[in-house]
């Protein structure tokens, strides 16, 4: 029975998706009352009638056409304000990558120190508690003023929001390594560096990776909002540019792309996490 579970789940997913599209289709069927009296043909033309203007919420087929349109040429470049979705996502990923990498460099060693020393835990805790709940975008005006560069500010915002989950999870993971293993290490008179890298790090790795996975999720959420605010390049800017055009099919397309990329990032960290987890 159980070996059919994945197939049945996939089938159910498909059915749910079909239902969703069906309901969407019926909800957006064109109604008849949108036709303006054709008495004044010029007025109707100026209002976009007969020019293929979409009324109301876009239909699934309109959104489908948008998908085909954008995905058939994801890397076009029509100047600084009109680039393909592939290029935009690459810009966003680059910013997220840079900010996340910097955060890793700071959060992992710091988390290690905090986790190993109860004194540091208590001393730094008030700061972490105050800084942690600040919305990353609240840093944006300050970052723009101090750093004087919107790209660097974007990376800084990713940095600051990726920090806390990594830091706290690392500290927690390090602090809760099983006493037996530490005691064994002490009995065998293992040096401090070796203890850190061969006993504590492997034991804490799953927790650390959980922190990194959470951080990456947050970073991907934040970059879209930051790019909408600052503009220029990136998938967030793409959404803003299409919003400026009030083009909902394009916005829906971009939202879907953001979701898919986020899923892939999460999946990649899931795989990493599995690699370092072992059962005892």
């Amino acid at each position: 029975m159980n070996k059919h579970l994945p197939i049945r789940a996939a089938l159910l997913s498909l059915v749910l998706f079909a239902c969703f599209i069906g309901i969407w289709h019926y909800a957006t069927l064109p109604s008849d009352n949108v036709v303006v009296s054709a008495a004044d043909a010029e007025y109707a033309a100026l209002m976009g009638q007969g020019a293929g203007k979409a009324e109301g919420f876009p239909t699934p087929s309109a959104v489908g056409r948008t998908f085909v349109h954008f995905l058939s040429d994801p890397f076009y470049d029509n100047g600084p304000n009109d680039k393909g979705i592939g290029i935009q996502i690459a810009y966003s990923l680059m910013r997220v990558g840079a900010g996340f990498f910097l955060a890793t460099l700071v959060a992992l060693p710091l988390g290690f120190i905090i986790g190993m020393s109860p004194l540091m835990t208590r001393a730094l805790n008030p700061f972490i508690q105050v800084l942690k709940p600040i919305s990353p975008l609240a840093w944006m005006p300050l970052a723009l003023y101090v750093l004087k560069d919107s790209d660097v500010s974007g990376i800084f915002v990713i940095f600051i929001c990726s920090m806390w989950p990594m830091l706290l999870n690392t500290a927690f993971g390090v602090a809760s390594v099983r006493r037996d293993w530490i005691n064994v290490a002490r009995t065998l008179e293992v040096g401090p560096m070796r203890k850190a890298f061969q006993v504590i790090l492997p034991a804490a790795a799953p927790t650390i990776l959980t922190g990194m996975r959470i951080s990456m999720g947050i970073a991907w959420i934040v970059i879209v909002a930051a790019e909408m605010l600052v503009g220029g390049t990136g998938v967030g800017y793409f959404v803003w540019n299409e919003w400026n055009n009030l083009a909902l099919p394009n916005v829906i397309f971009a939202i879907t792309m953001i979701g898919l990329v986020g899923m892939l990032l999460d999946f990649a960290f899931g795989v990493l996490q599995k690699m370092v987890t072992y059962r005892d």
Partner: protein
Amino acid sequence: MKDENLYRPYAADVALGRCSCGQHGSQHEHDAEAARARSLRGEKAESLSTDFVEAALVRAIFPQDATRRRFLKAVGANAAMAAIASMMPISDLQAMTLEKAGPLEKKDLTVGFLPITCATPIIFAGAADFYGREGLNVTLQKTAGWAIVRDKVLAKEFDASHMLSPMPLAISLGAGSTAAPMVMPVMENINGNAITLHVKHKNNRDPRNWKGMKFAIPFDYSMHNFLLRHYLAAHGLDPDKDVQLRVMAPPDMVANMRSGNLDGFIVAEPFNQRAVYEKVGFIHLLTSQIWDNHPCCAFAATEDFVNQNPNTFAALVRSIIGATAYVNKAENRKGVAEMIAPANYLNQPQTVVEQVLVGRYADGLGHVLSEPNRIAFDPFPWHSMGVWMLTQMKRWGYIKGEVNYQDIAERVYLATDAKKRMAELGLEAPAQTYKKHMILGKEFDPAQPEAYLKGLSAGA
């Protein structure tokens, strides 16, 4: 003996030991270094001419050299420089003396813009490569809002930018930002805005009945804010108490109006026309009905940029004035609309942009109206327009205390510069930089700003 001494130990005006600036081992080294810098500076034609202008000006202010020296000793060189610069448009005069022949200091430039029809000359100059003809390589960077434009200009990410015409005044005064001297060589457009109301207000056209309504404006330091406030106040409403004014990005305005969250907005095109096109609003009035030929958007840069790149700046201004003259011609408007509508620029349906630029449009109430002067492009930065904006900033509490209206307007709005560039392109510029304006049927005399303000508060 004491006079021959190289280090002049008995002279009162030299520091012994380390030099007066502290960066050289002795006063002797300091003097030699300064002389070297001066002779190097003398070899460059531009600095020679700007230095000459500055010296001539200072000489004109202090005909007696003894007075000049006493004044400098009393207040210090830096304070004196700032005081004189605040009285005299030195950089403006210096820029005027520089000839077109000079080499471009910087060729790769980033210019910011907001996707609205006010930016038409800036955008069109890029689309039709007016910049390239001046030897410039300009990247036009679309920007998400006016606050971001302000920040990116101050952070030097933008070399120059599309701005709302009150912004360079406000930034120079430090209103709503850190103070940074800005210059505005050209106005972009005149008219080109509207007050749009939600379709449910079709029968509510009298502003006297608008108490409690919610309106959106694009920025505090905008003609939109000042014109709407002026219009409401003229109809007996207090814009700070009787209605709600919210700062919002233009697409948000249309969406908020659709959801019934806004009763009206005043904003640049094409968003008024877009609201009509989306069947959520109708055009209550064009802002030209409040003040015909009122200024709107501008092209501006920091004074720093202009001082460092005078030739580049002159070339940039020439490109834009040239584009302005082209897009202002009625017969070119349709083609311009087609050129600036795509995603790289305005990202709007072409018919919407065209209705704005050509001036034959649907009003949202079932009529087709013709208003060829719906938007026009006139680069001349009238000082009197700047003075009006300053009176409104004072009126609504954005700036406090004594305001030296003419002085500020003349420092920021480079009318002499614009005249020169217009002449280079064979365009006729007005002889005066001040004129009287008719605003809502009331005359504004730029020579009497305080009297105008008193008249408004007394019985507008």
